[in-house]
């Protein structure tokens, strides 16, 4: 334990972040390519989130991780706790995609897809709508409590709370049927735990998107800290072109910069004002940067007005900034892509070849065999039959691998409810003359009411040693 660990924190950090109350950031509204891209991402992602919960599929909610019933409906597919493998694979794929896209284009996730960004954007829209643009908001906060301030602030809080509550409701609606949940809320008959989860998620949405905002990215997000491990000099980053911009300084519109001994940056600080995390991109790449591109939009706008080329702040790579070629195909990318393809392939292969039936065979531990009437030899087994389909099935047990071996029990068909685990006592019988020694046999369980649902399980049939 030594002090350099602390000393390595940026000086500004220890002054403004950890040890003093964070100063409120008033992000200035932006227009431009990246703002439109982010708005599109917000509309699409939140549209999916709020919309899919209400989709129906084949008589049930299309996407429902039904925790009370312990089964997952994913459109046409029903998964049970026995299918945990798929969830594990899905999480691995998600992590690998994050690595892949981070190495390729930096913090795409943070800038456009992270729920923190997306909901914050929505909350900021409400804030701008109720309290006005940046300078008005700052003035409003500084000013005394007037009726107007009360109305503006009050309506903002009201809209925020309503949105947060509806978000919490929708979120819980993915884990317990949303229509039932809606009816329960309407009739005030909601269970205490469902209410608890809705409250918790609403609170998280309200707190994270309304108040914490960039502090979540700066102080709470683990990804923000380790994403740089995926970076290299060919990764797309948002960067200020220092060689072109410096020395910065104000100048008249339309006047050439170079003869005045200036770079292209006019030091208007718009890039700082629009930044949702309140950093100055001109100081270089910082871990607070969530790569939202707001500074690019702001700067491009200014460059247009000044009559200079766009791209003083732009998406570029470290190699490109230093005049070297950038490679998209590099070892890191190939490794991530290969792993991603492998994981995705494994998931889809196992999903498409999945048989919604599990058969476990356990030989009777008490007796190797039993001599039955008429000089027959009998073996007993315990079968575990798990129906993983979302409808009931009837199965027939068959046996192969040994002549004259037949199924005594179960006598008829095995019936299994959806998702049920059934323990079945099975007995097989063969004539004594043919039964001597150990025989390797195969039990086959096949649905009689659905083609293609069949599983095979190897076991042994044992007779007296001759």
């Amino acid at each position: 334990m030594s002090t350099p660990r602390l000393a390595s924190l940026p000086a500004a950090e220890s002054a403004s972040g950890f040890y003093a109350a964070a100063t409120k950031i008033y992000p200035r509204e932006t227009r431009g390519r990246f703002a439109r891209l982010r708005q599109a991402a917000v509309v699409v992602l939140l549209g999916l989130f709020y919309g899919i919960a209400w989709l129906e599929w084949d008589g049930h909610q299309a996407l429902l991780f039904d925790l009370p019933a312990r089964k997952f409906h994913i459109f046409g597919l029903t998964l049970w706790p026995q299918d945990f493998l798929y969830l594990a694979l899905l999480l691995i794929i998600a992590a690998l995609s994050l690595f892949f896209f981070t190495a390729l284009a930096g913090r795409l996730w943070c800038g456009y897809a992270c729920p923190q960004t997306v909901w914050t954007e929505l909350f900021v829209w409400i804030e701008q709508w109720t309290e006005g643009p940046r300078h008005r908001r700052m003035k409003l906060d500084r000013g005394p409590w007037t009726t107007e301030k009360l109305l503006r602030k009050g309506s903002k809080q009201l809209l925020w709370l309503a949105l947060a509550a509806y978000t919490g409701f929708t979120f819980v609606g993915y884990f317990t049927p949303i229509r039932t949940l809606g009816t329960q809320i309407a009739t005030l008959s909601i269970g205490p735990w469902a209410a608890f989860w809705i409250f918790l998620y609403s609170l998280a949405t309200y707190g994270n998107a309304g108040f914490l905002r960039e502090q979540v990215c700066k102080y709470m997000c683990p990804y923000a800290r380790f994403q740089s491990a995926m970076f290299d000099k060919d990764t797309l980053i948002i960067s200020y072109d220092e060689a072109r911009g410096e020395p910065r300084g104000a100048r008249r519109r339309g006047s050439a910069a170079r003869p005045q001994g200036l770079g292209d940056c006019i030091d208007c600080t718009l890039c700082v004002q629009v930044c949702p995390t309140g950093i100055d991109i001109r100081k270089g790449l910082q871990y607070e940067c969530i790569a939202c591109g707001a500074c690019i939009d702001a700067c491009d706008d200014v460059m247009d007005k000044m009559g200079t080329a766009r791209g003083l702040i732009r998406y570029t790579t470290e190699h490109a900034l230093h005049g070297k070629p950038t490679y998209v195909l590099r070892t890191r990318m190939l490794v991530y892509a290969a792993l991603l393809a492998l994981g995705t392939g494994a998931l889809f292969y196992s999903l498409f070849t999945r048989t919604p039936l599990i058969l476990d065979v356990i030989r009777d531990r008490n007796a190797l065999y039993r001599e039955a009437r008429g000089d027959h030899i009998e073996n007993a087994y315990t079968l575990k039959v798990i129906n993983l389909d979302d409808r009931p099935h009837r199965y027939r047990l068959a046996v192969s691998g040994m002549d004259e071996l037949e199924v005594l029990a179960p006598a008829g068909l095995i019936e299994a409810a959806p998702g049920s685990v059934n323990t079945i006592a099975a007995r097989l019988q063969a004539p004594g003359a043919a039964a001597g020694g150990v025989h390797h046999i195969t039990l086959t369980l096949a649905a009689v009411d659905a083609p293609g649902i069949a599983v095979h399980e190897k076991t042994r049939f044992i007779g007296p040693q001759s």
Partner: protein
Amino acid sequence: MSTGAPPSRSRRPERGLDIALVLWPSFLAACGASLLFFAAIDPALLRNVGPRLFAGLDREAGYAVGFLFFWGIGAIASALSVYLIRTAQRPGDADGVRAEPP
């Protein structure tokens, strides 16, 4: 950071950070732990184990109690880490007063 630091003004924000450092990582850990645990164990089975603590709980309550349990355990671990870091004597400390970083 240390007990010898000037009191009042610098104390409060740090207390807030400590609480966040205890609750937040343990929350993340509880999410992961609940996912893994309840994928394998049906919370309804918890009714039948132990000293009848969960006898009256249905499945939904089982999930919540399990999650809060994992969160609590994680919070204890985080709190201990934070406590040990905050109360550690570092080289350069004299009588509990830590030298300012250069």
